[in-house]
């Protein structure tokens, strides 16, 4: 096995293991370049937040990590996103997007439970892998629902349709769905933008718990949220990565003028 890649943060005197990193990463929607030469390290079992004004490319970058762009024609990746410890370039055409998505899960902006029962929703990722043993499914579903702090609320109605849950519960269900298949990274695309403050708080708490086990990459337009939950923050603007650093550093002592303008609310 390769030597683990590391991210050395001299200022904070810590060494993190790298889970993934983008290298000179470009992305195109047709002729439209949405990401320009992005170099972003993602530390293992840490929360990395992507912030920036809308249209800056943060969601585009996030969706590149599990190849969601492959679903639509005319999209093109350039450069690399390396996943460790395998050290593969996950946007390379030779790499199977299906495998990548099994290993890197995603939670979307609006809760999108399938029109199925709560149980089937959570078990979906395992069913996709051909897991049919009821006992395994039950065990994993319970574990994932506990992990998403939803078990107590739904354990008596696992066969109810997921649509009947409240918005916050639906989003936690989607998190359980992502957790159930033991992903290495979970991508969160503004997971609380459709939720009320109480539901938002519970999701944020959950993220803090999950990161013990899983690497997290989160897009948020809410700077307080980024400051609250993330270890590292990347500020993006017009498709470029302007600044990356430890969250406490970046919010207190931004090195770039644009970052400062954004976090002090002068634009965006």
């Amino acid at each position, binding site marked *: 096995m390769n030597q683990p890649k590391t991210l050395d943060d001299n200022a904070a005197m810590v060494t993190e293991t790298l889970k993934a990193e983008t290298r000179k990463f470009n992305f195109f929607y047709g002729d439209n370049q949405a990401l320009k030469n992005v170099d972003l390290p993602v530390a293992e079992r840490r929360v990395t937040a992507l912030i920036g004004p809308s249209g800056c490319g943060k969601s585009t970058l996030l969706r590149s990590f599990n190849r969601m762009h492959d679903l639509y024609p005319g999209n093109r990746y350039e450069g690399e996103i390396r996943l460790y410890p395998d050290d593969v370039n996950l946007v390379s055409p030779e790499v199977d997007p299906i*495998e990548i998505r099994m290993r890197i899960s*995603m939670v979307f902006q*609006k809760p999108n439970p*399938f029109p199925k029962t709560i149980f089937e929703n959570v078990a*979906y990722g395992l069913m996709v892998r051909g897991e049919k043993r009821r006992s395994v499914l039950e065990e994993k579903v319970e574990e994932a629902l506990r992990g998403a702090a939803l078990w107590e609320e739904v354990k008596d109605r696992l066969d109810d349709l997921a649509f009947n849950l409240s918005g916050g519960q639906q989003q936690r269900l989607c998190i359980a769905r992502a957790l159930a298949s033991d992903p290495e990274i979970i991508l969160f695309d503004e997971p609380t933008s459709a939720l009320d403050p109480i539901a938002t708080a519970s999701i944020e708490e959950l993220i803090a718990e999950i990161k013990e086990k899983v690497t997290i990459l989160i897009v948020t337009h809410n700077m307080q949220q980024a400051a609250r939950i993330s270890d590292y923050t990347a500020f993006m603007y017009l498709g470029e990565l302007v600044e990356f650093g430890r969250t406490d550093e970046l919010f207190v002592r931004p090195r770039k003028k644009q970052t400062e303008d954004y976090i002090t609310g002068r634009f965006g």
Partner: protein
Amino acid sequence: MTTTDTGGSGSLSSPYLDRIRTMRHVRNGKERIIEAILFVAAFCAVAVTVAIVAILLYEASTFFEHVSLVEFLTGTEWTPLFERARYGMLPLLVGTVVTSAIAFLVAGPLGFLIAMYLSEFAPPKLAEVLKPFLELLAGVPTIVYGYFALLFVTPLLQKLIPGLPGFNMLSAGLVMGLMIVPYVASIAEDAMRAVPMALREGSYAMGATRFQTAMWVVLPASFSGVMAAFVLGISRAVGETMIVAIAAGQQPNFTFDPREPAATITAYIVQVAMGDLPHGSIGYQSIFAVGLVLVVITLFFNLIGQMLRRRIREVY
């Protein structure tokens, strides 16, 4: 802006304003008349339905003065034009059911597969090329399909099934199925397309393939719409006339064997209309009686189909 009657500088001049005011009643009157005319046009849809039901009931009621409802619904002999007339419509009903069932066995699976392919598998560019072809296929007049059934499919089938008569329900049903395929496919595809992309993304993000996403997420989400496509397709088959009149024969025949010739409800109406039956005769009224049965059956299927379609629209 000031709009006083004195007409201050920079505002509407007084005579102009006066005209607008006096015109107001004329304008409102005209608007109301136009709205009334438009309403009458829209209400025509209701009037046509009422007229259909009224005419069928009116003519059929005279028919049922001569024929008992029990014989009509349970009799197995339909010979209204014979000397010894019998009025049991089961043979027509069975002919309709058999041909429609064959048609559905073709159109259901094919239509579903096409819808799934176009909505979930096909590259958008290819789908754009294929869909107009299907629309054209749906636009081909049924008389041409009738020709196809009688002079192309039947001879072909006769090579496979020795002794198959020139008129048979199998050929008519098969071609009718092909005719309905685009209709079923387009309704089912609409339903699948209505499934929000967010659901598909949720599935793909778990590493599901297109087939897994189609079967486990898109199909359950669009289930009622796909059912609607099937039901409306059956309704089309039940009401289809020319293909069966040409290729299945026009003689009532009480049989479930698709290799046999038989008349459907619609084929019987055509047969009578082609002849020279006097207005008001019982043979003339009989086509309204069987027409009423046809309306009831298709209406039943259509209402179910529309209910199912509406349900999927409400969800998304």
